[in-house]
């Protein structure tokens, strides 16, 4: 329906659309964006930050006569989803940082989303109100009390239009079910349940029930000293209510079928690529850890992100990925210093475009990468303030690997590792992307002629 959707084949030109968040330098830690997510129609875009806040942007209605002005995203609602807490039994601080946001399919005029920090998942309702009751019996319009003796008739309040008000209300709090840190939440296609995954366990919840959940995966060994791997991400199949996958720190993915048994400790499929012995190093295990796993919209493939690559797996082929894309292979020689500054443990996420033909994921120096699965072409783009002029076209960036640095290229040594793009989102049906760069959210669109 949208021309050029997923067509990097014609080398989609991306242009700047909007920049959200404070522009001043020295933003606080709390402002750092920790998750970005479009809703199912793409009308809304939610971000969560380290300060426990959720900001929802709504796309403006496109005006018919101004074709070039495309719908921009404006703040719709902002609310404090999580507060810092302290677990007195374990003497642990619980950060308010929003780890993930997931939208629910729309069920009535209100919108619903799940947000989670390390321990607690909350279901939020975001709704509009544009009417207000007016008229009291015991006081007049200014709020002055009336003499009760003068009340001779009863007044029923009348609803009058008022300025639109958007309210966010917590509808459910799903707490006390995770001993470890929650890394993923995922809504089931039955619209009735969702799962939450932490380092060692995955729980299944019903949206209506907050006081119990079912543990469906538990990989905690009886003796914690035997622990060799942790769960890093988990997601439900987009259409099959019984299927979900979870990835591990060992670079493997397990697919489970909830029909087979109530406990899914035994997987149905196990995706693993044999290790290349020639590439083996001290860092092999760390960089093979999967930081994100996503089903394609079609449900036929899964995509995983590890430190240096993005891989696409066919659900029917477990022994190796069907596609592997190098995100920033030039860092292979720098793993030692990346280990020292802890960057090697960064958890990059990855997303599909609406038609599953293009993949996007982040890198350092505010660079993010796109891979066209059909043409096999890839591009590196940068989210930077210098480019933030309206409809400015993003120039592809290149990192030079060898000694000679050409013009417009940037050398590996001058990459800024503190500027990382961990979280990105792609509009479900259009070429609109949201890229979180530290405390800023960039929105880019394809160029429409």
């Amino acid at each position, binding site marked *: 329906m949208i021309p050029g959707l997923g067509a990097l084949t014609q080398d989609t030109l991306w242009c700047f659309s909007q920049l959200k968040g404070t522009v001043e330098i020295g933003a606080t830690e709390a402002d750092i964006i920790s998750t970005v997510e479009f809703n199912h129609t793409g009308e809304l875009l939610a971000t969560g930050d380290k300060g426990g806040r959720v900001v929802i942007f709504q796309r403006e209605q496109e005006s018919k006569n101004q074709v070039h002005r495309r719908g921009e995203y404006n703040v719709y609602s902002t609310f404090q989803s999580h507060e810092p807490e302290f677990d007195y039994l374990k003497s642990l601080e619980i950060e308010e940082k929003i780890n993930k946001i997931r939208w629910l399919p729309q069920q009535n005029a209100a919108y619903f989303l799940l947000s989670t920090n390390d321990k607690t998942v909350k279901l939020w309702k975001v709704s509009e109100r544009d009417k207000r009751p007016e008229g009291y019996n015991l006081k007049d319009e200014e709020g002055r009390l009336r003499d009760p003796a003068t009340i001779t008739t009863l007044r029923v309040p009348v609803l009058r239009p008022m300025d639109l008000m958007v309210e966010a209300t917590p509808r459910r709090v799903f707490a006390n079910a995770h001993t470890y840190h929650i890394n993923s939440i995922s809504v089931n296609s*039955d619209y009735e349940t969702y799962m939450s995954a932490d380092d060692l366990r995955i729980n299944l919840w019903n949206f209506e029930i907050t006081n119990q959940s079912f543990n469906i995966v538990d990989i905690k060994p009886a003796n914690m000293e035997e622990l060799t791997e942790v769960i890093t991400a988990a997601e439900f199949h987009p259409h099959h209510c019984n299927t979900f996958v979870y990835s591990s720190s060992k670079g493997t993915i397990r697919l489970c079928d909830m*029909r087979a048994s109530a406990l899914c400790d035994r997987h149905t499929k196990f995706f693993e690529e044999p290790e290349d012995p020639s590439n083996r190093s001290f860092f092999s295990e760390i960089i093979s850890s999967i930081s994100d796993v996503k089903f394609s919209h079609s449900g036929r493939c899964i995509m995983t992100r590890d430190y240096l690559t993005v891989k696409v797996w066919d659900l029917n082929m477990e022994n190796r990925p069907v596609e592997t894309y190098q995100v920033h292979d030039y860092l292979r020689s720098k793993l030692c210093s990346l280990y020292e500054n802890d960057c090697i443990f960064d958890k990059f996420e990855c997303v599909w475009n609406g038609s599953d033909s293009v993949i996007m994921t982040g890198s350092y120096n505010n660079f993010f990468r796109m891979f066209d699965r059909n043409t096999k072409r890839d591009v590196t783009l940068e989210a930077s303030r210098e480019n933030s002029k309206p409809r400015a076209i993003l120039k592809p960036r290149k990192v030079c690997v060898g000694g000679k640095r050409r013009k417009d290229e940037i050398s590996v040594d001058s990459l800024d590792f503190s500027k990382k793009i961990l979280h990105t989102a792609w509009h479900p049906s259009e070429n609109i992307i949201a890229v979180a760069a530290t405390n800023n959210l960039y929105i880019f669109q394809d160029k429409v002629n």
Partner: protein
Amino acid sequence: MAGVAGPATGSGAAGGDGDDSLYPIAVLIDELRNEDVQLRLNSIKKLSTIALALGVERTRTELLPFLTDTIYDEDEVLLALAEQLGNFTGLVGGPDFAHCLLPPLESLATVEETVVRDKAVESLRQISQEHTPVALEAHFVPLVKRLASGDWFTSRTSACGLFSVCYPRASIAVKGEIRQYFRSLCSDDTPMVRRAAASKLGEFAKVLELDSVKSEIVPLFTNLASDEQDSVRLLAVEACVSIAQLLSQDDIEALVMPTLRQAAEDKSWRVRYMVADKFSELQKAVGPKITLNDLIPAFQNLLKDCEAEVRAAAAHKVKELCENLPMEGRETMIMNQILPYIKELVSDTNQHVKSALASVIMGLSTILGKENTIEHLLPLFLAQLKDECPEVRLNIISNLDCVNEVIGIRQLSQSLLPAIVELAEDAKWRVRLAIIEYMPLLAGQLGVEFFDEKLNSLCMAWLVDHVYAIREAATNNLMKLVQKFGTEWAQNTIVPKVLVMANDPNYLHRMTTLFCINALSEACGQEITTKQMLPIVLKMAGDQVANVRFNVAKSLQKIGPILDTDALQEEVKPVLQKLGQDEDMDVKYFAQEAISGTKRPSGSSGFQGGSRDSPV
């Protein structure tokens, strides 16, 4: 600001010339939008009062429109509103105006909160009955259609519950439309709506003509039963029951059984679980012949299902299934077709399965009779009594009465005793607590001799358990035993042992003596209380631990009503007075409480605290 509208302000001034009766109503109306949820809720619950004051005309033209738009409120307020509106017909002018209630309920039927929506649907169903056939087609049916074709699935799910109430009274043409709408909801895009349709399928089938059931409902049922969503398929199992009830044996065989067989072998354990869970209903609905041919083999499969949840659900149904089999040939069938599977389950790997079986297996003895029980069931009971899982053992013990009727408990007692002793000494206090609660039952069945010989010492040991909850339960247990075995038994076996503990070096055990006296005095009666217990209590008033002393005061207050006046005046009162001067604040307080309790003229009311707390 909204707080000032509270009823307290100016209620005194409401007199004068103003209309007296209006003021409280005015307050109620204003509080419909108070910031305090409790006040709003209160106002909504008195909605009928408001409507009555406004009269039918203004209720229809002003109050209902206002309520229609107040769906922003808290769930509990909306729930109350939905409930109120179901009984509102009289307040809007009777059945002729019942349709005025539809708009507010329609908006309530679209909110996201299931309980509110369900309540709105319930009220709509109630109101539908008050519509005349003409009004039903003019107002109610259009509402159902609107909901059924709504954009959001909340409204479509609500519609599912309304078809069955308007169908019977609709004209033929409208009936056709209603069926059409229901059909489309059964194949809705969202699983939420298909689930709602599946769960109302049976109900809708009941009001349809038999031909339509066969030609329309059965295909819908078959489709839903093969839905891609597990959560939809499992609801079709329930519909199976209602549909089968409507059909003849041949039709059941032809139209329902293929689907039911398929459900019993579904790939998803949740669907098979549902079949197991609904087994008794299914059995009744399809009748004895199909049960023998089809359900029994299906049940055997469920009993050895690979998923423990399914096995447990099936195990739960074993007794009901057997009970409901036709008398003729029942025994042979159970012995040959069910019992072999049960034997397997006794040593299942999963403790939930075993404990589910243990909770019903004893019930089989009445069905199978004495000989079979001794020969076949008894070994199973004995094995379960030795199970490693305490819950299994407890479930067997708690159902001993079934066996007692058939073979007498003596058969079991040799195995029972070690099982009880082990549970009584289990490391988990909750397990100990559970077995204590079965003691009176066991005592009743085993008889006083066996009890004295084997179990009495256990009961006494619990009194000095290190967990308070156990000591407390043990105290109550003694009381129940005394009620069962009588005062003479108490005097000979229990009381002396309890009283000895008054000299225990551990003050907690000394207090247990007091608690026991509190519990036992009433059951033991005046004589034992006065002669044996009272002296001990009084002696303990000199205890060095304050906690013991103030419990003496409390005990005296408690046993006061049982004592005669002489004892009260001459023995209890001086002691209480002395305690009233105690250096410890708490002791003083409770002593004074007790004194003021004893001073009241009539013994019973003066000891209200005591008589209220004494166990019945």
